[in-house]
Protein backbone atom coordinates (compact mmCIF):
# COMPACT_ATOMS: atom_id res chain seq x y z
CA UNK A 1 0.00 0.00 0.00
CA UNK A 2 2.73 2.44 0.96
CA UNK A 3 4.88 1.36 -1.98
CA UNK A 4 1.88 1.78 -4.27
CA UNK A 5 1.31 5.32 -2.99
CA UNK A 6 5.00 6.11 -3.44
CA UNK A 7 4.75 5.10 -7.10
CA UNK A 8 1.62 7.21 -7.59
CA UNK A 9 3.29 10.10 -5.81
CA UNK A 10 6.42 9.78 -7.89
CA UNK A 11 4.37 9.92 -11.09
CA UNK A 12 2.62 13.07 -9.99
CA UNK A 13 5.78 14.51 -8.45
CA UNK A 14 7.81 14.03 -11.60
CA UNK A 15 5.27 16.08 -13.51
CA UNK A 16 5.19 18.81 -10.86
CA UNK A 17 8.97 18.91 -10.87
CA UNK A 18 9.13 19.36 -14.63
CA UNK A 19 6.68 22.25 -14.56
CA UNK A 20 8.40 23.74 -11.50
CA UNK A 21 11.72 23.81 -13.38
CA UNK A 22 10.28 26.34 -15.82
CA UNK A 23 9.17 28.58 -12.95
CA UNK A 24 12.44 28.37 -11.13
CA UNK A 25 14.63 28.93 -14.21
CA UNK A 26 12.75 32.06 -15.20
CA UNK A 27 12.75 33.29 -11.62
CA UNK A 28 16.47 32.62 -11.33
CA UNK A 29 17.21 34.89 -14.26
CA UNK A 30 14.50 37.56 -14.26
CA UNK A 31 13.23 37.39 -10.67
CA UNK A 32 9.82 37.14 -12.26
CA UNK A 33 7.08 34.73 -11.22
CA UNK A 34 5.87 33.72 -14.65
CA UNK A 35 2.20 33.15 -13.87
CA UNK A 36 1.55 32.24 -17.49
CA UNK A 37 3.79 29.18 -17.20
CA UNK A 38 0.86 26.92 -16.21
CA UNK A 39 -0.90 28.02 -19.40
CA UNK A 40 1.99 26.68 -21.49
CA UNK A 41 1.43 23.34 -19.81
CA UNK A 42 -2.26 23.56 -20.71
CA UNK A 43 -1.37 24.44 -24.32
CA UNK A 44 0.91 21.42 -24.33
CA UNK A 45 -1.98 19.16 -23.35
CA UNK A 46 -4.22 20.61 -26.10
CA UNK A 47 -1.51 20.56 -28.75
CA UNK A 48 -0.82 16.94 -27.84
CA UNK A 49 -4.46 16.08 -28.55
CA UNK A 50 -4.43 18.12 -31.77
CA UNK A 51 -1.26 16.58 -33.20
CA UNK A 52 -2.31 13.10 -32.22
CA UNK A 53 -5.61 13.80 -33.97
CA UNK A 54 -3.79 14.93 -37.09
CA UNK A 55 -1.59 11.85 -37.16
CA UNK A 56 -4.57 9.59 -36.57
CA UNK A 57 -6.55 11.19 -39.38
CA UNK A 58 -3.56 10.53 -41.62
CA UNK A 59 -3.96 6.90 -40.72
CA UNK A 60 -0.92 6.92 -38.46
CA UNK A 61 -2.40 5.71 -35.21
CA UNK A 62 -0.15 4.98 -32.32
CA UNK A 63 -1.08 1.32 -32.63
CA UNK A 64 0.23 0.86 -36.15
CA UNK A 65 2.84 3.60 -36.09
CA UNK A 66 4.38 4.06 -32.62
CA UNK A 67 6.58 6.88 -33.93
CA UNK A 68 3.41 9.02 -34.12
CA UNK A 69 3.56 9.46 -30.36
CA UNK A 70 7.16 10.65 -30.46
CA UNK A 71 6.39 13.03 -33.34
CA UNK A 72 3.44 14.37 -31.36
CA UNK A 73 5.71 15.12 -28.44
CA UNK A 74 8.30 16.80 -30.66
CA UNK A 75 5.75 18.98 -32.46
CA UNK A 76 4.12 19.95 -29.17
CA UNK A 77 7.46 20.90 -27.66
CA UNK A 78 8.27 22.95 -30.75
CA UNK A 79 4.97 24.84 -30.64
CA UNK A 80 5.06 25.43 -26.88
CA UNK A 81 8.64 26.66 -27.06
CA UNK A 82 7.52 29.11 -29.72
CA UNK A 83 4.73 30.26 -27.38
CA UNK A 84 7.23 30.66 -24.55
CA UNK A 85 9.67 32.58 -26.73
CA UNK A 86 6.95 34.89 -28.05
CA UNK A 87 5.49 35.44 -24.58
CA UNK A 88 8.83 36.75 -23.33
CA UNK A 89 9.40 39.00 -26.33
CA UNK A 90 5.89 40.48 -26.29
CA UNK A 91 4.98 40.66 -22.61
CA UNK A 92 8.20 40.74 -20.56
CA UNK A 93 11.07 42.13 -22.59
CA UNK A 94 9.56 45.62 -23.00
CA UNK A 95 9.22 45.69 -19.20
CA UNK A 96 12.78 44.54 -18.46
CA UNK A 97 13.68 47.76 -16.67
CA UNK A 98 10.24 48.52 -15.26
CA UNK A 99 9.42 48.12 -11.54
CA UNK A 100 9.08 44.46 -10.58
CA UNK A 101 5.33 44.59 -10.23
CA UNK A 102 4.78 45.49 -13.91
CA UNK A 103 6.02 42.26 -15.50
CA UNK A 104 4.12 40.35 -12.81
CA UNK A 105 0.87 42.00 -13.85
CA UNK A 106 1.81 41.40 -17.47
CA UNK A 107 2.28 37.70 -16.64
CA UNK A 108 -1.21 37.51 -15.14
CA UNK A 109 -2.49 39.21 -18.29
CA UNK A 110 -0.81 36.63 -20.53
CA UNK A 111 -2.30 33.87 -18.39
CA UNK A 112 -5.84 35.24 -18.71
CA UNK A 113 -5.33 35.83 -22.42
CA UNK A 114 -4.11 32.30 -23.14
CA UNK A 115 -6.93 30.69 -21.11
CA UNK A 116 -9.58 32.62 -22.99
CA UNK A 117 -7.85 32.09 -26.31
CA UNK A 118 -8.00 28.35 -25.81
CA UNK A 119 -11.55 28.50 -24.44
CA UNK A 120 -12.77 30.41 -27.51
CA UNK A 121 -10.95 28.33 -30.09
CA UNK A 122 -11.31 24.89 -28.48
CA UNK A 123 -14.55 25.28 -26.57
CA UNK A 124 -15.26 25.45 -22.87
CA UNK A 125 -16.10 21.76 -22.48
CA UNK A 126 -13.68 19.02 -21.54
CA UNK A 127 -11.65 17.39 -24.30
CA UNK A 128 -10.83 13.72 -24.13
CA UNK A 129 -7.40 12.42 -24.91
CA UNK A 130 -8.10 10.29 -28.02
CA UNK A 131 -6.25 7.17 -27.04
CA UNK A 132 -5.37 5.70 -23.69
CA UNK A 133 -1.81 4.53 -23.81
CA UNK A 134 0.00 2.19 -21.57
CA UNK A 135 -2.97 0.45 -20.03
CA UNK A 136 -0.86 -2.67 -19.64
CA UNK A 137 -0.22 -3.30 -15.99
CA UNK A 138 3.16 -4.25 -14.70
CA UNK A 139 3.34 -6.20 -11.47
CA UNK A 140 6.45 -5.22 -9.63
CA UNK A 141 6.98 -6.40 -6.06
CA UNK A 142 3.52 -5.94 -4.63
CA UNK A 143 2.97 -2.85 -6.72
CA UNK A 144 0.57 -2.36 -9.55
CA UNK A 145 2.17 -0.01 -12.05
CA UNK A 146 0.78 0.92 -15.44
CA UNK A 147 3.14 1.24 -18.37
CA UNK A 148 2.09 4.88 -18.62
CA UNK A 149 3.13 5.58 -15.02
CA UNK A 150 6.47 3.97 -15.71
CA UNK A 151 6.85 6.06 -18.86
CA UNK A 152 6.06 9.28 -16.97
CA UNK A 153 8.53 8.49 -14.19
CA UNK A 154 11.26 7.56 -16.68
CA UNK A 155 10.63 10.60 -18.89
CA UNK A 156 10.71 12.95 -15.91
CA UNK A 157 13.95 11.41 -14.70
CA UNK A 158 15.51 11.68 -18.17
CA UNK A 159 14.48 15.32 -18.56
CA UNK A 160 15.88 16.23 -15.15
CA UNK A 161 19.15 14.43 -15.90
CA UNK A 162 19.31 16.18 -19.26
CA UNK A 163 18.82 19.58 -17.65
CA UNK A 164 21.46 18.76 -15.08
CA UNK A 165 23.96 17.89 -17.84
CA UNK A 166 22.96 21.00 -19.79
CA UNK A 167 23.98 23.12 -16.81
CA UNK A 168 27.59 22.06 -17.32
CA UNK A 169 27.70 23.00 -21.00
CA UNK A 170 28.88 26.31 -22.41
CA UNK A 171 25.30 27.54 -22.78
CA UNK A 172 24.37 26.19 -19.34
CA UNK A 173 27.27 27.97 -17.69
CA UNK A 174 26.30 31.17 -19.48
CA UNK A 175 22.77 30.72 -18.15
CA UNK A 176 23.98 30.27 -14.57
CA UNK A 177 26.28 33.26 -14.90
CA UNK A 178 23.38 35.36 -16.18
CA UNK A 179 21.22 34.26 -13.25
CA UNK A 180 23.91 35.39 -10.81
CA UNK A 181 24.78 38.76 -12.35
CA UNK A 182 23.25 39.94 -15.61
CA UNK A 183 25.49 42.98 -16.11
CA UNK A 184 28.66 41.05 -15.40
CA UNK A 185 27.55 38.24 -17.70
CA UNK A 186 27.12 40.76 -20.52
CA UNK A 187 30.56 42.18 -19.77
CA UNK A 188 32.23 38.81 -20.31
CA UNK A 189 30.54 38.64 -23.70
CA UNK A 190 27.32 36.75 -23.00
CA UNK A 191 24.29 37.94 -24.97
CA UNK A 192 21.81 38.18 -22.11
CA UNK A 193 18.77 38.47 -24.41
CA UNK A 194 19.64 35.17 -26.09
CA UNK A 195 20.06 33.49 -22.71
CA UNK A 196 16.70 34.78 -21.50
CA UNK A 197 14.98 33.56 -24.68
CA UNK A 198 16.72 30.22 -24.27
CA UNK A 199 15.42 29.96 -20.69
CA UNK A 200 11.83 30.51 -21.83
CA UNK A 201 12.25 28.03 -24.70
CA UNK A 202 13.58 25.30 -22.41
CA UNK A 203 11.02 25.99 -19.66
CA UNK A 204 8.14 25.93 -22.13
CA UNK A 205 9.43 22.77 -23.77
CA UNK A 206 9.50 21.02 -20.40
CA UNK A 207 5.98 22.23 -19.58
CA UNK A 208 4.79 20.91 -22.95
CA UNK A 209 6.03 17.40 -22.14
CA UNK A 210 4.37 17.62 -18.73
CA UNK A 211 1.12 18.69 -20.43
CA UNK A 212 1.06 15.68 -22.74
CA UNK A 213 1.94 13.31 -19.91
CA UNK A 214 -0.86 14.55 -17.68
CA UNK A 215 -3.36 14.66 -20.53
CA UNK A 216 -2.70 11.02 -21.31
CA UNK A 217 -2.62 10.09 -17.60
CA UNK A 218 -5.97 11.62 -16.66
CA UNK A 219 -7.38 11.35 -20.18
CA UNK A 220 -9.23 14.64 -19.91
CA UNK A 221 -8.28 18.24 -20.60
CA UNK A 222 -9.91 21.65 -20.37
CA UNK A 223 -8.80 25.24 -20.75
CA UNK A 224 -8.43 25.88 -17.02
CA UNK A 225 -6.11 23.00 -16.03
CA UNK A 226 -3.10 25.31 -16.28
CA UNK A 227 -4.23 27.26 -13.25
CA UNK A 228 -4.10 24.49 -10.65
CA UNK A 229 -1.02 22.86 -12.19
CA UNK A 230 0.67 26.24 -12.22
CA UNK A 231 -0.11 26.87 -8.56
CA UNK A 232 1.09 23.38 -7.59
CA UNK A 233 4.31 23.71 -9.57
CA UNK A 234 4.89 27.15 -8.14
CA UNK A 235 4.42 25.67 -4.67
CA UNK A 236 6.93 22.97 -5.56
CA UNK A 237 9.44 25.57 -6.72
CA UNK A 238 9.02 27.61 -3.54
CA UNK A 239 9.17 24.49 -1.39
CA UNK A 240 12.53 23.53 -2.88
CA UNK A 241 13.81 27.11 -2.91
CA UNK A 242 12.82 29.28 -5.84
CA UNK A 243 15.63 29.93 -8.28
CA UNK A 244 17.29 26.63 -7.39
CA UNK A 245 17.09 23.93 -10.07
CA UNK A 246 17.74 20.94 -7.79
CA UNK A 247 15.28 22.61 -5.42
CA UNK A 248 12.52 22.54 -8.01
CA UNK A 249 13.17 18.85 -8.70
CA UNK A 250 13.14 17.98 -5.01
CA UNK A 251 10.14 20.22 -4.30
CA UNK A 252 8.11 18.71 -7.12
CA UNK A 253 8.76 15.14 -6.10
CA UNK A 254 8.10 15.88 -2.42
CA UNK A 255 4.84 17.60 -3.30
CA UNK A 256 3.67 14.63 -5.36
CA UNK A 257 4.55 12.20 -2.56
CA UNK A 258 2.85 14.29 0.11
CA UNK A 259 -0.32 14.55 -1.95
CA UNK A 260 -0.68 10.89 -2.73
CA UNK A 261 0.27 9.69 0.74
CA UNK A 262 -2.02 12.26 2.36
CA UNK A 263 -4.85 11.24 0.05
CA UNK A 264 -4.37 7.57 0.83
CA UNK A 265 -3.90 7.70 4.59
CA UNK A 266 -5.88 10.72 5.71
CA UNK A 267 -8.54 11.69 3.23
CA UNK A 268 -8.55 12.30 -0.50
CA UNK A 269 -11.09 15.11 0.00
CA UNK A 270 -8.28 17.32 1.22
CA UNK A 271 -5.80 16.24 -1.45
CA UNK A 272 -4.94 19.80 -2.48
CA UNK A 273 -4.58 21.01 1.10
CA UNK A 274 -1.66 18.84 2.27
CA UNK A 275 0.79 20.37 -0.14
CA UNK A 276 0.01 23.86 1.07
CA UNK A 277 0.20 22.87 4.74
CA UNK A 278 3.68 21.48 4.17
CA UNK A 279 4.60 24.62 2.23
CA UNK A 280 3.46 26.77 5.15
CA UNK A 281 5.51 24.76 7.63
CA UNK A 282 8.64 24.81 5.46
CA UNK A 283 8.35 28.54 4.86
CA UNK A 284 7.99 29.19 8.59
CA UNK A 285 11.15 27.20 9.34
CA UNK A 286 13.16 27.98 6.21
CA UNK A 287 11.80 31.03 4.38
CA UNK A 288 14.10 30.48 1.39
CA UNK A 289 12.91 26.91 0.82
CA UNK A 290 14.65 23.59 1.39
CA UNK A 291 17.60 24.14 -0.94
CA UNK A 292 17.30 27.89 -1.43
CA UNK A 293 20.40 29.67 -0.24
CA UNK A 294 20.35 32.89 1.65
CA UNK A 295 20.61 35.56 -1.01
CA UNK A 296 21.48 39.15 -0.45
CA UNK A 297 19.35 41.79 -2.11
CA UNK A 298 21.27 42.90 -5.17
CA UNK A 299 22.08 46.58 -5.20
Amino acid sequence: MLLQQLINGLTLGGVYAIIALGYTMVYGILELINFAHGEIYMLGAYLGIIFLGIFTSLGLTAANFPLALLLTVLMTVLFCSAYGFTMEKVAYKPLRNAPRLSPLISAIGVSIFLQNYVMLTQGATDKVFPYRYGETHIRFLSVDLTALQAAIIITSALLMTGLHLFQKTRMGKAMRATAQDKTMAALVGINVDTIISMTFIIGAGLAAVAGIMVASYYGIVNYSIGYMAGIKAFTAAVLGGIGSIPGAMLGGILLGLIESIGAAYISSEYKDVYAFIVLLIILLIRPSGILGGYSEEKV
Partner: protein
Amino acid sequence: MFVLEARELTKHFGGLKALEAVSFKVKEGAIHSIIGPNGAGKTTLFNCLTGVTRPTRGSIHFSGQEISRLQPHEVAELGIARTFQNIRLFPEMTVMENVMVAQHTRTKYGLLSAVLRGSSFMSKERAVREKGFEYLELMGLEDHAEALAGNLPYGSQRRLEIARALATEPKIILLDEPTAGMNPMETLEVMDLIRKVKGLGKTVILIEHDMKLVMGISEWILVLDHGVGIAEGSPEEVRNDPLVIEAYLGRETTH
Protein backbone atom coordinates in the same frame (compact mmCIF):
# COMPACT_ATOMS: atom_id res chain seq x y z
CA MET B 1 49.30 53.50 -32.30
CA PHE B 2 46.11 54.42 -30.48
CA VAL B 3 43.64 51.60 -29.81
CA LEU B 4 41.01 53.62 -28.07
CA GLU B 5 39.88 57.17 -28.43
CA ALA B 6 37.11 59.08 -26.64
CA ARG B 7 35.87 62.29 -28.26
CA GLU B 8 33.92 64.86 -26.26
CA LEU B 9 32.44 62.08 -24.10
CA THR B 10 29.54 63.47 -22.08
CA LYS B 11 27.18 61.77 -19.66
CA HIS B 12 24.43 63.56 -17.77
CA PHE B 13 22.19 61.92 -15.17
CA GLY B 14 19.34 64.40 -15.09
CA GLY B 15 20.98 67.57 -13.83
CA LEU B 16 24.17 65.83 -12.71
CA LYS B 17 27.02 66.17 -15.18
CA ALA B 18 28.96 63.00 -14.50
CA LEU B 19 31.15 63.49 -17.56
CA GLU B 20 31.55 66.70 -19.54
CA ALA B 21 33.28 66.60 -22.93
CA VAL B 22 36.10 64.27 -21.89
CA SER B 23 38.52 63.44 -24.70
CA PHE B 24 41.57 61.19 -24.59
CA LYS B 25 43.56 58.71 -26.58
CA VAL B 26 44.92 55.39 -25.35
CA LYS B 27 48.18 54.03 -26.68
CA GLU B 28 48.39 50.33 -27.52
CA GLY B 29 50.25 48.15 -25.06
CA ALA B 30 50.74 50.82 -22.40
CA ILE B 31 49.45 51.25 -18.85
CA HIS B 32 47.12 54.22 -18.44
CA SER B 33 45.60 55.53 -15.25
CA ILE B 34 42.53 57.60 -14.56
CA ILE B 35 42.64 59.40 -11.25
CA GLY B 36 40.54 62.00 -9.53
CA PRO B 37 38.70 62.68 -6.27
CA ASN B 38 35.59 60.68 -5.33
CA GLY B 39 32.67 61.45 -7.62
CA ALA B 40 34.94 62.66 -10.40
CA GLY B 41 33.23 60.38 -12.95
CA LYS B 42 35.87 57.67 -13.24
CA THR B 43 33.55 54.71 -12.94
CA THR B 44 30.97 56.40 -15.18
CA LEU B 45 33.72 56.66 -17.77
CA PHE B 46 34.37 52.91 -17.48
CA ASN B 47 30.65 52.25 -17.77
CA CYS B 48 30.54 54.25 -21.00
CA LEU B 49 33.60 52.51 -22.41
CA THR B 50 32.11 49.06 -21.79
CA GLY B 51 28.59 49.79 -23.04
CA VAL B 52 26.97 49.57 -19.59
CA THR B 53 25.75 53.16 -19.86
CA ARG B 54 25.15 55.03 -23.08
CA PRO B 55 26.85 58.42 -23.24
CA THR B 56 24.63 61.48 -23.65
CA ARG B 57 26.96 62.88 -26.30
CA GLY B 58 30.33 62.14 -27.81
CA SER B 59 31.85 59.04 -29.33
CA ILE B 60 34.22 56.21 -28.50
CA HIS B 61 36.41 54.68 -31.15
CA PHE B 62 37.99 51.30 -30.60
CA SER B 63 40.36 50.01 -33.27
CA GLY B 64 38.74 52.45 -35.70
CA GLN B 65 35.16 51.41 -34.87
CA GLU B 66 32.58 53.60 -33.12
CA ILE B 67 31.38 51.58 -30.08
CA SER B 68 29.44 53.99 -27.88
CA ARG B 69 26.07 52.63 -29.06
CA LEU B 70 26.93 48.94 -28.72
CA GLN B 71 25.61 46.49 -26.12
CA PRO B 72 28.02 45.37 -23.36
CA HIS B 73 28.36 41.86 -24.82
CA GLU B 74 29.25 43.30 -28.22
CA VAL B 75 31.92 45.52 -26.69
CA ALA B 76 33.29 42.50 -24.82
CA GLU B 77 33.37 40.51 -28.04
CA LEU B 78 35.34 43.28 -29.76
CA GLY B 79 37.94 43.08 -27.00
CA ILE B 80 37.35 45.28 -23.97
CA ALA B 81 37.16 43.60 -20.57
CA ARG B 82 36.82 45.05 -17.10
CA THR B 83 36.84 44.40 -13.38
CA PHE B 84 34.79 46.13 -10.71
CA GLN B 85 35.64 48.14 -7.64
CA ASN B 86 33.27 45.99 -5.60
CA ILE B 87 34.15 42.50 -6.81
CA ARG B 88 31.57 40.94 -9.09
CA LEU B 89 32.37 37.29 -9.59
CA PHE B 90 29.83 34.57 -10.25
CA PRO B 91 30.00 33.45 -6.60
CA GLU B 92 28.04 30.21 -6.97
CA MET B 93 30.23 28.88 -9.76
CA THR B 94 33.63 27.34 -9.30
CA VAL B 95 36.82 29.31 -9.93
CA MET B 96 37.38 27.29 -13.10
CA GLU B 97 33.82 27.86 -14.31
CA ASN B 98 34.27 31.59 -13.85
CA VAL B 99 37.15 31.66 -16.32
CA MET B 100 35.46 29.13 -18.61
CA VAL B 101 32.29 31.14 -18.93
CA ALA B 102 34.37 34.19 -19.84
CA GLN B 103 35.63 32.34 -22.91
CA HIS B 104 32.00 32.11 -24.04
CA THR B 105 32.29 34.32 -27.13
CA ARG B 106 35.60 32.81 -28.17
CA THR B 107 34.31 29.26 -28.33
CA LYS B 108 31.45 28.56 -30.67
CA TYR B 109 29.80 25.22 -30.98
CA GLY B 110 26.21 24.26 -31.55
CA LEU B 111 23.83 23.04 -28.89
CA LEU B 112 23.44 19.76 -30.75
CA SER B 113 27.12 18.92 -30.54
CA ALA B 114 27.06 19.75 -26.83
CA VAL B 115 24.16 17.34 -26.28
CA LEU B 116 25.64 14.61 -28.45
CA ARG B 117 29.08 15.14 -26.88
CA GLY B 118 30.96 14.28 -30.05
CA SER B 119 34.73 14.21 -30.22
CA SER B 120 35.06 17.75 -31.63
CA PHE B 121 32.94 19.03 -28.74
CA MET B 122 35.02 17.19 -26.18
CA SER B 123 38.30 18.47 -27.61
CA LYS B 124 36.97 22.05 -27.65
CA GLU B 125 35.75 21.61 -24.10
CA ARG B 126 39.20 20.37 -23.09
CA ALA B 127 40.86 23.30 -24.86
CA VAL B 128 38.63 25.75 -22.96
CA ARG B 129 39.49 24.07 -19.69
CA GLU B 130 43.22 24.07 -20.43
CA LYS B 131 43.16 27.71 -21.43
CA GLY B 132 41.20 28.52 -18.29
CA PHE B 133 43.85 26.74 -16.25
CA GLU B 134 46.56 28.89 -17.87
CA TYR B 135 44.80 32.06 -16.77
CA LEU B 136 44.41 30.68 -13.27
CA GLU B 137 48.10 29.78 -13.15
CA LEU B 138 49.03 33.25 -14.30
CA MET B 139 47.12 34.70 -11.34
CA GLY B 140 48.34 32.02 -8.93
CA LEU B 141 44.91 30.44 -8.46
CA GLU B 142 45.56 27.00 -9.97
CA ASP B 143 45.21 25.26 -6.60
CA HIS B 144 41.71 26.61 -6.09
CA ALA B 145 40.24 25.71 -9.49
CA GLU B 146 37.40 23.64 -8.07
CA ALA B 147 36.56 25.90 -5.13
CA LEU B 148 33.44 28.06 -5.24
CA ALA B 149 34.42 31.58 -6.28
CA GLY B 150 32.37 33.06 -3.44
CA ASN B 151 34.43 31.12 -0.87
CA LEU B 152 37.82 32.51 -1.93
CA PRO B 153 39.60 35.00 0.32
CA TYR B 154 39.33 38.64 -0.70
CA GLY B 155 42.72 38.99 -2.40
CA SER B 156 42.19 35.82 -4.43
CA GLN B 157 38.77 37.04 -5.54
CA ARG B 158 40.43 40.15 -6.94
CA ARG B 159 42.95 38.04 -8.82
CA LEU B 160 40.18 35.79 -10.13
CA GLU B 161 38.38 38.86 -11.46
CA ILE B 162 41.49 39.77 -13.44
CA ALA B 163 41.88 36.15 -14.63
CA ARG B 164 38.28 36.15 -15.78
CA ALA B 165 38.72 39.45 -17.61
CA LEU B 166 41.81 38.03 -19.36
CA ALA B 167 39.86 34.92 -20.34
CA THR B 168 37.63 37.04 -22.61
CA GLU B 169 40.82 37.62 -24.63
CA PRO B 170 40.58 41.39 -24.64
CA LYS B 171 42.85 43.93 -26.28
CA ILE B 172 42.14 46.41 -23.51
CA ILE B 173 41.53 45.58 -19.89
CA LEU B 174 39.93 48.12 -17.56
CA LEU B 175 40.73 47.70 -13.86
CA ASP B 176 38.51 49.63 -11.44
CA GLU B 177 40.47 50.11 -8.20
CA PRO B 178 42.15 46.70 -8.11
CA THR B 179 43.83 47.49 -4.79
CA ALA B 180 40.72 48.68 -2.95
CA GLY B 181 40.78 47.26 0.57
CA MET B 182 44.29 45.84 0.28
CA ASN B 183 47.30 46.25 2.54
CA PRO B 184 50.66 47.59 1.18
CA MET B 185 52.02 44.05 0.67
CA GLU B 186 49.01 43.00 -1.38
CA THR B 187 49.12 46.27 -3.30
CA LEU B 188 52.68 45.47 -4.39
CA GLU B 189 51.51 42.06 -5.59
CA VAL B 190 48.76 43.69 -7.63
CA MET B 191 51.33 45.98 -9.21
CA ASP B 192 53.25 42.90 -10.34
CA LEU B 193 50.08 41.38 -11.70
CA ILE B 194 49.33 44.51 -13.70
CA ARG B 195 52.80 44.39 -15.19
CA LYS B 196 52.22 40.73 -16.05
CA VAL B 197 49.00 41.66 -17.83
CA LYS B 198 50.85 44.30 -19.79
CA GLY B 199 53.51 41.70 -20.57
CA LEU B 200 50.82 39.69 -22.38
CA GLY B 201 50.54 42.56 -24.83
CA LYS B 202 47.35 43.97 -23.31
CA THR B 203 46.58 47.64 -22.98
CA VAL B 204 45.66 48.49 -19.39
CA ILE B 205 43.47 51.32 -18.15
CA LEU B 206 43.47 51.65 -14.41
CA ILE B 207 41.32 53.58 -11.96
CA GLU B 208 43.32 53.89 -8.78
CA HIS B 209 43.53 55.91 -5.58
CA ASP B 210 46.90 54.61 -4.45
CA MET B 211 49.19 57.37 -5.74
CA LYS B 212 52.38 55.41 -5.22
CA LEU B 213 51.06 52.68 -7.43
CA VAL B 214 49.73 55.07 -10.05
CA MET B 215 52.90 57.12 -10.30
CA GLY B 216 55.09 54.01 -10.29
CA ILE B 217 53.33 52.07 -12.98
CA SER B 218 51.54 54.41 -15.40
CA GLU B 219 52.91 55.71 -18.63
CA TRP B 220 50.10 58.19 -19.03
CA ILE B 221 47.57 59.65 -16.58
CA LEU B 222 44.23 61.37 -17.05
CA VAL B 223 42.93 63.45 -14.15
CA LEU B 224 39.19 63.92 -13.82
CA ASP B 225 37.47 66.36 -11.50
CA HIS B 226 33.71 66.86 -11.42
CA GLY B 227 33.41 65.08 -14.77
CA VAL B 228 35.93 67.28 -16.54
CA GLY B 229 39.37 66.22 -17.70
CA ILE B 230 41.59 68.76 -15.97
CA ALA B 231 45.00 67.36 -16.88
CA GLU B 232 46.72 64.58 -18.73
CA GLY B 233 50.24 63.48 -19.43
CA SER B 234 53.14 61.58 -17.94
CA PRO B 235 53.26 61.04 -14.17
CA GLU B 236 55.76 63.94 -13.79
CA GLU B 237 53.62 66.37 -15.76
CA VAL B 238 50.50 65.47 -13.82
CA ARG B 239 52.22 65.54 -10.43
CA ASN B 240 53.31 69.13 -10.91
CA ASP B 241 50.15 70.43 -12.54
CA PRO B 242 48.70 73.23 -10.36
CA LEU B 243 45.12 72.31 -11.32
CA VAL B 244 45.67 68.75 -10.10
CA ILE B 245 47.18 69.91 -6.83
CA GLU B 246 44.21 72.20 -6.35
CA ALA B 247 41.67 69.46 -7.07
CA TYR B 248 43.26 67.17 -4.52
CA LEU B 249 44.42 69.59 -1.83
CA GLY B 250 42.35 72.72 -2.34
CA ARG B 251 43.46 76.20 -3.45
CA GLU B 252 46.67 77.64 -2.09
CA THR B 253 46.05 80.72 0.00
CA THR B 254 48.46 83.62 0.34
CA HIS B 255 49.26 84.82 3.81
